[in-house]
């Protein structure tokens, strides 16, 4: 948006267009533009560049949360369960998190609870070796609950600081698979009464409005404490997190910006807000 435009109907439409094309969704885009319009009117703003800073503030506000860091101090081992639909980037994100924790001198153990997909265990084993952390695994086809149980025992025995659990990708409309993931959470709660400290939903930034349904249903099935937004190194803007923020108040904790183990950053609402309009 040029910075010397006047605030006419065309301007507000163009703003709406930018948001919709960033996957913010129609309703959220309209609400956001309406709010900004009102604020601009109240403050008697006539310069479009000032509007841009209002909308950046509004977006930052929607995304700024208490508890936007990882919540692991309460218990040892701190358990992070990682869930999400097929191909979102769960396994790779776990490698990145393990690398981050290792660099903070934390003792990390990983659990290969995707016992279904071809070579899923092999994939996580290679990452575990590269990062230099231990992986608890069974054979392909084993009961994922059994892997989780073993991993928790191992984490307790080795006094690990963090246990990160990789699960199989699943589409949220598959009721039996959502039952399975709820059951896995219950297994964790049996061993650690306060349950997992974090349940991270991995969301692909290229996803459209279906992301809202993903967040809703995973929130119901396992609870979701945070989102990892992956593949932001592409051209997708990941605007879906705004709709999720306004409806479900789930904070984005990390963003994935590449395929290497160091390609993960803490979520920065300011950076995200600005990138929406680039």
């Amino acid at each position, binding site marked *: 948006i040029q910075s010397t435009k006047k605030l006419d109907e065309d301007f507000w439409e163009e703003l709406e267009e930018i948001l919709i094309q960033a996957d913010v969704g129609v309703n959220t885009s309209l609400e956001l533009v309406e709010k900004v319009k009102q604020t601009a009117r109240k403050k008697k703003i006539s310069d479009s560049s000032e509007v841009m800073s209002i909308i950046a503030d509004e977006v930052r506000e929607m995304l700024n949360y208490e508890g936007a860091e990882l919540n692991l101090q309460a218990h040892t081992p701190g358990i992070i369960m990682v869930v999400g639909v097929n191909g979102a980037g769960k396994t790779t994100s776990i490698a990145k998190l393990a690398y981050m924790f290792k660099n903070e001198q934390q003792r990390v153990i990983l659990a290969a609870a995707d016992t279904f997909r071809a070579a899923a265990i092999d994939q996580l084993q290679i990452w575990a070796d590269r990062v230099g952390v231990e992986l608890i695994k069974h054979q392909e086809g084993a009961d994922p609950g059994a892997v989780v149980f073993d991993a928790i025992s191992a984490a307790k025995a080795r006094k690990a600081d963090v246990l990160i659990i990789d699960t199989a990708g699943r589409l949220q409309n598959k009721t039996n698979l959502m039952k399975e993931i709820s059951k896995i959470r219950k297994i964790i709660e049996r061993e650690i009464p306060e349950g997992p400290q974090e349940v991270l939903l991995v969301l692909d930034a290229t*996803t459209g409005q279906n992301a809202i349904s993903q967040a809703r249903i995973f929130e119901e099935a396992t609870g979701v404490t945070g989102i990892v937004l992956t*593949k932001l190194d592409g051209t997708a803007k990941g605007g879906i997190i705004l709709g999720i923020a306004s409806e479900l108040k789930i904070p984005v904790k990390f963003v994935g910006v590449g*395929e290497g183990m160091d390609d993960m950053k803490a979520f920065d609402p300011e950076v995200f807000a600005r990138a929406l309009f680039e």
Partner: protein
Amino acid sequence: GLSQRLQDVFKKLRGKGKISEDDVNLAMREVRLALLEADVNFKVVKDFIGRVKERAIGQEVLQSLTPGQQIIKIVHDEMAALMGGSESKLTFSSRPPTIFMAVGLQGAGKTTTVAKLGKVLVKQGRKPLLVACDIYRPAAIKQLQVLGEQTGIPVFAMGQNKPLDIARASIEYAKNRGCDMIILDTAGRLHIDSEMMDELVQIKEAVKPDEILLVVDAMTGQDAVNVSDHFNSQLGLSGVILTKLDGDSRGGAALSVKAVTGCAIKFVGMGEKLDALEPFYPDRMASRILG
């Protein structure tokens, strides 16, 4: 769904006598909202609504007793026509081996789809060879080998060699094994990664695939246009495969990709199992997108 919303629009207008162009505009607004919510790309929606509106202000709607239903029919038919129409059959070479290449973004479903496609070809009495050209993703080669075992289809791998060399070598290997089809599984990549896109261009120029198939996740949002446009302009696509249609996303990306590349959607992935690959039906997809 959309039909209820259009019915509500026209209920308010009942008793006004003839429907006017303004009334049709109201209906077009509802259609536009429905398509955007279904993840059809913003610009594609604009063009599409433009085309539909031309028909919607024609006599078939203005004189109809059920204008809402007429408009839905026009929208549905225009959409199905847009997504259908081009050659949706696979191309086979007159001089085997026929070569297919699967390309697309990270995690779209290429490796799984390559194995599924192999299974479909076996059912047609052909002898496919799956080729592991993803040397980057941890255990990608192993993944394809496991799928090969599960489907009883041979897999050609050359470990950590250049994908270009692996693709080239697969031709001789296929001939020696009596395989008449080669399906190349490539690494997921960003359309804006010029080095990785160039790798695909080199493979294309070296082995001249009969099909270059873009594998697209059905839940892709507005970015579907960007991605497919880049892949198409750099490689020239011959077709698209839409995956994870067993999910509950509306799948508007299908319309976006077709509108922008003109390429036929040849198959849809309907699950994780290796028999879950079905032909693409434009009118079924249109109904799904319209909700």
